[in-house]
């Protein structure tokens, strides 16, 4: 039973679950549409009047958009990693959250592609990266991998749509959803392969900038250490983002949607991966400080210009790294609802900060003796077009939660 007022609406809602009335749902969508339309206006401005409508310039060709792009791709890592744990490692309990991880992943990768569509300035020439591919560029590999991985996520999302109460009544769609589920381990394995390379290559982009000692890293064969750090950090942070969005959804729905043991498995794995990442990150930082000093770029020169002082280094590794790691690893704090949310928030903030540092701060640090420091802060068009994807994500999650069976434990946890 559900309390939806319109018959066509209640016919679409999964059986045995309760949803709010249609009019309240439409009001909620209407509220989300207001900031979303501001974002649409920002897109139109940037496309119609070109990128001089933003605060991007020759000093900062990479700004909020690229940092957000790398951030959401890392946060969307929860989809590939949860899929890997569920279908390859076969942790059966994760079947109760993998659907939602896919929904979050689709939104994150759609955001990444959407932000790139405005960042490249001329989206009508976006296809050039595929047709006139520079096969020596890590960014080309990233473009290939995120496009293909977005297709993988759409294929993973498709059976959820086909399992809608009404669509599933049609024999063909019912069968298609069933057979897609059967092929899911192979699809998930393809997603893991693609994610591994594009997460890594995003780290490789700053790591190979040998003209910028702040970003450059030595490494293994053609891969700088940042390649491996980006993969590990995405694996550590993605599950935390899935937990965080699950908790936010539960807050709005005012009910439990996933059992505590499922969340606990993801949080524990995330904690151990974060610990591994932090050990390697600290080793990398120590090695980088030593190497940079030898090539005439002492540590102080990287943090001499505000707002990028030493606090950046301390906050990224200490507050957004070590603290959430301890909170996730200690059983008592991990099982405390509020502290778990704090740990996930700090972990996700840390990944965003890391991506900002590796892109925007890398460009901010002067390289030549005659270079001057210029500050950068995004303008309204950059903020609105980036945040637009948050509102769109909320709309997609609201629609998916209302009409698709994305939480298999909901009925058991909330008997009607």
């Amino acid at each position, binding site marked *: 039973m559900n309390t939806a007022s319109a018959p066509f609406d209640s016919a679409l809602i999964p059986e045995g679950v309760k949803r709010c009335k249609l009019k309240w749902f439409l009001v909620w969508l209407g509220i989300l549409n207001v900031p979303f339309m501001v974002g649409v206006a920002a897109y139109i401005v940037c496309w119609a009047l070109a990128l001089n409508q933003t605060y991007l310039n020759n000093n900062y060709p990479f700004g909020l958009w690229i940092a957000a792009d790398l951030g959401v791709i890392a946060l969307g890592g929860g989809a590939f990693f949860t899929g890997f744990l569920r279908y390859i490692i076969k942790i059966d309990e994760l079947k109760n959250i993998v659907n939602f991880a896919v929904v979050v992943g689709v939104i994150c990768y759609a955001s990444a592609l959407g932000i790139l569509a405005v960042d490249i300035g001329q989206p009508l020439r976006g296809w050039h990266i595929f047709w006139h591919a520079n096969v020596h560029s890590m960014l*080309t590999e990233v473009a290939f991998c995120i496009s293909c991985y977005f297709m993988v996520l759409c294929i993973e999302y498709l059976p959820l749509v086909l399992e809608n109460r009404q669509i599933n009544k049609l024999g*063909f769609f*019912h069968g*298609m959803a069933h*057979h*897609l589920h059967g092929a899911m381990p192979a*699809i998930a394995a393809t997603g893991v*392969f693609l994610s591994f390379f594009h997460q890594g290559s995003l780290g490789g982009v700053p790591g190979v900038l040998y003209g910028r000692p702040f970003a450059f890293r030595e490494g293994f064969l053609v891969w700088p250490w940042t390649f491996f750090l980006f993969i590990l950090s995405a694996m550590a942070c993605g599950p935390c983002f899935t937990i965080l969005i699950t908790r936010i959804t539960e807050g709005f729905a005012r009910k439990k949607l996933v059992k505590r043991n499922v969340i606990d498995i993801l949080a524990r794995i995330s904690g151990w991966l974060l610990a591994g990442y932090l050990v390697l990150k600290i080793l990398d930082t120590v090695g980088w400080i030593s190497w940079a000093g030898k090539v005439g770029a002492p540590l102080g020169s990287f943090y001499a210009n505000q707002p990028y002082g030493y606090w950046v280094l301390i906050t990224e590794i200490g507050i957004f790294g070590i603290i959430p790691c301890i909170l996730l690893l200690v059983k008592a704090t991990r099982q405390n609802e509020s502290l778990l949310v704090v740990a996930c928030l700090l972990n996700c903030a840390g990944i965003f900060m890391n991506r900002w540092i590796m892109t925007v701060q890398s460009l901010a640090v002067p390289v030549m003796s005659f270079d001057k420091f210029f500050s950068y802060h995004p303008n309204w068009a950059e903020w609105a077009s980036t945040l637009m994807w948050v509102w769109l994500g909320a709309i997609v999650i609201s629609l998916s939660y209302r009409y698709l069976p994305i939480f298999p434990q909901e009925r058991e946890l909330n008997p009607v």
Partner: protein
Amino acid sequence: MFPFCFDWVNDPVHFVFMGSLYSVLILLGIFVNYAVIRAFLDLICKKEGQSHH
């Protein structure tokens, strides 16, 4: 980029790079078509009272 494009170069990097892209795309095509064909076959070969679950 296909091998018949003017900026194609017959070197290992092009074959590995573009080959990987097309392999993944073909693989995804196979997964989706597998599900479509199996669902279609199920539909036309379905016997009375038989179900997937």
